């Protein structure tokens, strides 16, 4: 029997008007949380906004989110066969779902 990870993901564009959505993701030992999020987009819901570039190399540092209240890189945090709560970084401006504005101010369009 396949094990599953239960991902409870914060969705929305306004911190005051968000909602939690649940997704069941097939789980394989060794996978990352980002693997799970990408699986959701390709197989369940492409409207889920996430941010990442390097996927595996832990080089771009774009995939920071909060997992059970702690800041992690989604690409290095392990997916686990349990309920996991995923939310956008609390200390950055929210763009959508798990995506926040992380570019240094001097590197933004102005």
């Amino acid at each position, binding site marked *: 029997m396949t094990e599953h990870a239960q991902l409870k993901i914060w969705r929305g564009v306004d911190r005051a008007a968000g909602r939690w959505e649940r997704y069941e993701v097939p789980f394989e*030992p060794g*996978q990352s949380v980002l693997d799970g999020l990408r699986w959701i987009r390709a197989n369940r819901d492409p409207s889920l906004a996430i941010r990442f570039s*390097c996927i595996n190399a832990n080089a771009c*540092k774009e995939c920071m989110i909060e997992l059970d209240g702690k800041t992690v890189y989604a690409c290095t945090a392990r997916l686990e066969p349990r309920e996991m709560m995923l939310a956008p970084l609390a200390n950055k401006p929210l763009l959508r779902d798990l995506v926040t504005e992380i570019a240094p101010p*001097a590197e933004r*369009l102005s």
Partner: protein
Amino acid sequence: MANPLHTSTDVLVIGAGGAGMYAAIDAARQGARVLLIDRSLIGRGGATVMAQMTVAVALGAQTPDHWSHHYADTLAAGRGLCAEPLARLLCEEGPDCIREMDAWGIGWARRDGRIVQAQAPGHDRPRCVYVDFLNTGPAVSKTLRTVVNRTAGIRKAGDLAVVDLIVADGEVTGAAALHLVTGAAVTIAAKATVLATGGLTRLYRRNSASANMGGDGYALALRAGATLVDMEFVQFFPIGHLAPRLIGMDPIMWDPFRYKLGGRLLNGNKEEFTSRYGSDESGKYVLTRDLATYAIIKEVDAGRSSPHGGAYLSFEHCSAAALRAAFGPVIDRLAKNDIDLTRMPVEVAPIAHYHMGGITADARMATNVPGLYAAGEAVGGANGANRLSGNAITEALVFGRRAGRSAAEWAAGIAAQPFRPEVARASLDLIAADGGGAGPNTAEMITKLQATMADEVGPLRDAARLRRALARIEELTVALGERPFGAPTAFDLRRLEWFDLRNMLLVAGAVAATALARQESRGAHQREDFPETEASWRVNQIVHWRDSELALVRNPAAVEMAAQ
């Protein structure tokens, strides 16, 4: 979103990897006002920051060397197809860029005060510089980013995905981009534009790519009237990590391990096999990438694969001390992934890694369209049918510097911005379009395209598979439609993927079409139905975009084409 944002600059650099950042620095040094943009963060989105290994350059720090030896090795690896002026530029100016990076404090590994140069396959002597431990790319990126930040005249903006170049009267006059943060359309007027958008390996299921390496620059160039060359030559990295699942590390990280410690490549029966394919490694690491890829795929086809469909790579003959001495903290990262190399092999398989083909440019990095320059992996031709390891970062630095200079010179000769808003209209309308509905699942479509490219346009090819790929690409193109779905909004990944697919499908078509046309085997292009290398095919294929169709032209004069 009624009034699109607009800005202007002398030189616009699209893509902030090694090539783009060096281009920005050199253009600014010539006195140009520069705007450096990226669809990701500055210096983080592409291959440069992910590279872990080495940079090939005839410094002669370790053993006497001269650029002409590096050049001879590069041409030999390219199997008769290198654009010689580009290969020459890479080899001749490499040392200068590497020394400049040294002066900027990159920290090339040194022994007794001298820069260390390692041996790598295909090079006739130790020629590859690096930054320990597996830190070459991050160090290149960080160094250039620091210099970009302190160079007057460079503005930067991330989260800007360029959707089209703006061509007026046959000249590139700037670009139209999707601002990811807001979903707004942005126009940029530029006197000269440098495409430094990197490669296309995201087209394949198993790849070493970032999400930004879907070949945007090739599509942008084609639609602007520029040509592409050698698109059939995609380099597969033979020993990409396959299993067990490894996170937080670049999947091509095994190469330096193998190189420093002589890892053994074994089939599913734990037998050595590379000697069956014309190479006896006998403990040494001499197999070039195209041959190693071929050997592994053939072994898998013969039913002798490792459990996950690749080959074993074993370091079980090495002591824990030897492994730690060679790889320091990397051993701990492996341990976190439950990998103990002294006790178990890992599984590896070929993965898409680099693109030899790309935008046609001369030795000034000028394309055939006035005002448009190219740099880095986006440029085709320097490496012919196969690239030597270490040449790609050198290429990014050297071509970037040259493109920045050429673009600044071109811009200096232009008094008023040639950009005209009405010419950008169609692109702006597309970026702002509301095609209604949710549309197809774009993430799933990308997965399908990647599967098609891997299964039908991989390292081993034949006519039937390539035709199937072209048909599939056509189907996906129809499914994508003419306009993105839904209204523009903040950080809409689906919308970005729609624009990605618009480019990826065009570029995938160019790879498959050139691969189908080339009825021979050479370097990274292996046709099972045409297994021999044919003298008559010592030609480069040039791809044009005419009346919304791909057109191929054979150009026997590879050498002259790139000459000035």
